[in-house]
């Protein structure tokens, strides 16, 4: 009986403690600078439906308090070095702050002294963001891999679930690599991802029906690699690649991933047929992406001629890796006849005047802009510290660097939210090794704002998480096929494409 009472009392105290808002210290010494917080949410613009922007204060403090003031109220938070915002209160804060800002004042107790820092704002945009993103969770490894999963995260409430986990079919002797998840028009009833090595094949969900296909044919270089769903027809453009990997002995970039050969193919999902799109000599074509009307396909291509017959192509590529520079191309497509025509160079990145290389183009939902990553050379910019996000205006054909989004470290894999107001990039800005999904507001004037790291319940999550968020993609709904259904299908033989 006594024990019961003690337990009840303890539970009550714990419950009360969890609901308590800390008191703002009144005797704090003012610091003229912003507080050091992680993730850096100072002066960022956020969607009006994002989950709480939890952060930790990195001032070496024993206690912290953050006061969040918004139109019509204020709340305080702080536990140890963390500022974790109650989810219900956050909804209230967001609702009141649309098209306005949340003022954040941070106080930190260092030794016996409380310090207050320069307040900062979090601006709340009137635009919402797609509720889901998905990404591959992978160690930023060199050759080895073990556990890989494609996960989906609900951006409005931290809920993260696995779409597929390779360990469900991997064995001790035969691992399985999974990659290149892709969706048609941000929806998940038409989606795909690849599996390599064990139980290899491409998992394609077509109008909600799951099938496993082998896209390698006698005429193609490889199975499909980088995919792009046609927005209206049941077609998918893929690149086919012969890829190699090598390692820098000293360079900070550490790894190079190079294609010795690559082409583009078009896969007809209904007919299970593959045909070539572009297959030019001495050209390395890769990264197809459709315009929203489906009448144009953008892609990257590098002109590269092998000179040395005495060594293998891969060896020559390693020796001349810095010469490989990709430019941006487009080719028209007629969805009725399914014919391609009018190949054009859109942005001559490899030209002497620019002397750069572009990768991973993505067209905005209104078709007015194309985002891509640009670095000094090559196509695997996630390992290139100099890689940044650039944007092509399709009406003026002018390219500009999105300074607000970029950092001194690698930015790659840009993507647009379905309403075109949010740009997500895979960035290594935090530590140079682990890719994190950053989201930036893209306002109606075409200006990109400072990006923010996708919030997590525990703000220290990213510090201790030793995996990358690879290929972050927006979705407007979760994947409904369960991991078990994928695993069952994965064990079946792939149907060969024609």
């Amino acid at each position: 009986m006594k024990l019961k009472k003690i337990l009840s009392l303890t539970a009550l105290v714990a419950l009360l403690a969890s609901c308590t808002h800390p008191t703002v210290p009144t005797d704090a010494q003012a610091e003229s600078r912003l507080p050091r917080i992680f993730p850096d949410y100072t002066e960022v613009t956020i969607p009006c439906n994002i989950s709480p922007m939890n952060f930790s204060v990195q001032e070496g403090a024993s206690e912290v308090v953050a006061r969040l003031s918004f139109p019509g109220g204020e709340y305080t938070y702080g536990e140890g070095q963390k500022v974790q915002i109650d989810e219900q209160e956050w909804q209230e804060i967001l609702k009141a702050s649309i098209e306005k800002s949340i003022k954040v004042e941070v106080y930190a107790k260092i030794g016996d002294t409380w310090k207050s820092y320069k307040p900062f704002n979090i601006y709340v945009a009137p635009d919402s963001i797609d509720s889901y993103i998905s990404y591959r969770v992978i160690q930023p490894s060199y050759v080895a891999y073990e556990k890989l999963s494609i996960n989906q995260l609900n951006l409005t409430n931290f809920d993260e679930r696995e779409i597929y986990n390779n360990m469900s079919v991997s064995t001790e002797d035969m691992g399985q690599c999974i990659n290149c998840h892709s969706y048609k028009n941000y929806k998940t009833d038409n989606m795909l991802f690849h599996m390599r090595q064990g139980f290899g094949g491409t998992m394609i969900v077509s109008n909600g029906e799951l099938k496993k296909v082998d896209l390698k044919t006698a005429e193609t270089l490889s199975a499909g690699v980088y995919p792009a769903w046609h927005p209206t027809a049941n077609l998918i453009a893929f690149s086919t690649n012969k890829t190699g990997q090598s390692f820098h002995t000293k360079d900070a970039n550490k790894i190079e991933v190079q294609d010795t050969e690559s082409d583009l193919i078009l896969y007809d999902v209904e007919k299970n047929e593959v045909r070539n799109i572009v297959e030019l000599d001495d050209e390395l074509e890769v990264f197809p992406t459709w315009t929203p009307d489906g009448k144009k396909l953008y892609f990257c291509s590098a002109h590269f001629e092998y000179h040395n017959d005495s060594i293998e192509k891969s060896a020559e590529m390693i020796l001349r890796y810095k010469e490989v520079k990709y430019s941006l191309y487009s080719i028209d497509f007629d969805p009725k006849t399914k014919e391609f025509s009018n190949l054009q160079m859109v942005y001559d990145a490899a030209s002497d005047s620019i002397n750069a290389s572009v990768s991973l183009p993505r067209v905005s939902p209104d078709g007015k802009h194309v985002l891509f990553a640009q670095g000094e050379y090559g196509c695997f910019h996630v390992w290139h510290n100099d890689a940044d996000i650039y944007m092509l205006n399709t009406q003026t054909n002018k390219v500009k660097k999105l300074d607000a989004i970029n950092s001194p470290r690698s930015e790659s894999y840009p993507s647009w939210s379905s309403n075109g107001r949010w740009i997500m990039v895979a960035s290594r800005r935090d530590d140079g090794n682990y890719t994190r999904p950053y989201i930036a507001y893209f306002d109606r004037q075409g200006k990109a704002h400072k990006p923010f790291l996708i919030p997590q319940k525990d703000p220290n999550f990213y510090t201790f998480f030793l995996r990358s968020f690879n290929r972050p993609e927006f979705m407007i709904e979760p994947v409904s096929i369960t991991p078990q259904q994928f695993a069952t299908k994965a064990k079946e033989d792939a149907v060969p494409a024609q």
Partner: protein
Amino acid sequence: MKKNLKIQIKYIYLILFITAAYILLPVMNGDYLYTIQDNSVFIGGSTFMKDLMGREGGWLSWCSCYLTQFFYHPWLGSTILILLWSATFLMLVRAFRISSKWSFLALLPQLFFLFELLDYGYWLYYSKTIGWAFNHTLLFFFITLAATLLIGTLRPMNIFQKKVVARTMEGMSFVLMFVLGTWLLGSWKFFHHPSEFTITMSDANFKHEMRMYRALDEFRFDDVLNEYESIQETPTNLMVLYKNIALMHTGQMDKMFATGNCGIKPEPDDSIKLRTSQLGAPLIYYLFGHINYAYRWAFENSVQYRLSFRNLKMMAVCAIFNKDFDVAAKYLTMLKTSAYYRQWAFEHEAWMLNSTKFVQSKDYEIVTSVLNDQDNLLDGDDGLCQRYLLEFFSDLEHPNTPLLEDVCLCMSLWSKDYYTFALHFYDYVNKHPNRPIPELYQEGAILQRDAEESPIDLSGFMFDEIVNEKYKSFAIDYFNLQQRKFSPNEIAQQMKPRYGNTYWWYYYFYNDFEIY
């Protein structure tokens, strides 16, 4: 009196078991236990816990990882393990009412756990099971605890029921022992391959390797050499490599062949494909000044097998060398949550905050002594660290530190690369016209003098008289033994006492250099 005796027998069994466990663990296998913790990891905070909870037996693995840390002090870790075993034994005896006389049966599971731990051997580098050292022990401990509590709760009050339950429990205990024993034996390699139960118990090289690695890791190069000297068996290739690294960093690389340079590839178990890349590549690359490759293999091994303190530390220190301070800080933050690497993490954090401290560090002194100034290269080692280093240094043009000059010469000799040795020797002699040429290099060069296709002309080079004479007698002895129709192996054995410490013996007779 009789009852007291029975009680005593139970405790005597336990004391005997504890004594045996202490002898087999910290006394005989302290280095092994230290290496187990070095290859395990525990990170405080919710992320690590959440990651483990997402796996089968996650909670158990988390507890196991936490406890494995204490093998840093083998006696402490062993004591924790033995306490768990003892408690499990006592609970088993009590819960299943095993008579004192038969109580030794309740020690069988613990005995299996002990042998399982010792039997792991080289698997400790390859196992993907997180917290394996404590997993089974903890699982059995918790099951026994639950059973004890359950039986205690259900224990009936009247004598008849008591008797029925007691007999049932006794019966169950024997069934449990049988099932558990069969399962353990079935899953245990010893059952199928009795000869394999030799790794930790009697494979001296395995122990020497671990000791040499640790000494190398702590820059106790003299201890590496002493350990190598104490070896009775034919050393493994990895031990030879460790020895040569120690010679390199003590300025004695020209003693490479005089100290014995012939190793073997260990074949402990057909199911393990031993590779230097998993056993020691990160440290080996680091001590050869190949920071990117050291980082890479620490990373690869963490991905493919398990994250470990060893790899975290290596990744942190390599990141500091590369001035990747943000990622180094990440690894150091993790190490700060461990029981024994907290201080290490703070010391290394100080290197980032104060570059003078870094420049004055032993790591800096050692690594920069072999840091080549060659431009960045894009290449790969195909997982064969030793072959890569031999080729890299043999081919390295214009070594930029005095130590690197020695490394290049020795690596060319080690790989029997005539051509590159000749070039390095030529540079060396021209660079140091007044310096006495070490005997080893003269031994290599004298082969060049007589070679038909040498890139350099050594006909005018003045070899030391002692080298000249020794080479002449080597050639005569070799010729005579050949004339007497001895097999190459017999010639090698006959010439070994007199010439085994020369390069010539290595060059002509050591042909089993198997890189792994």
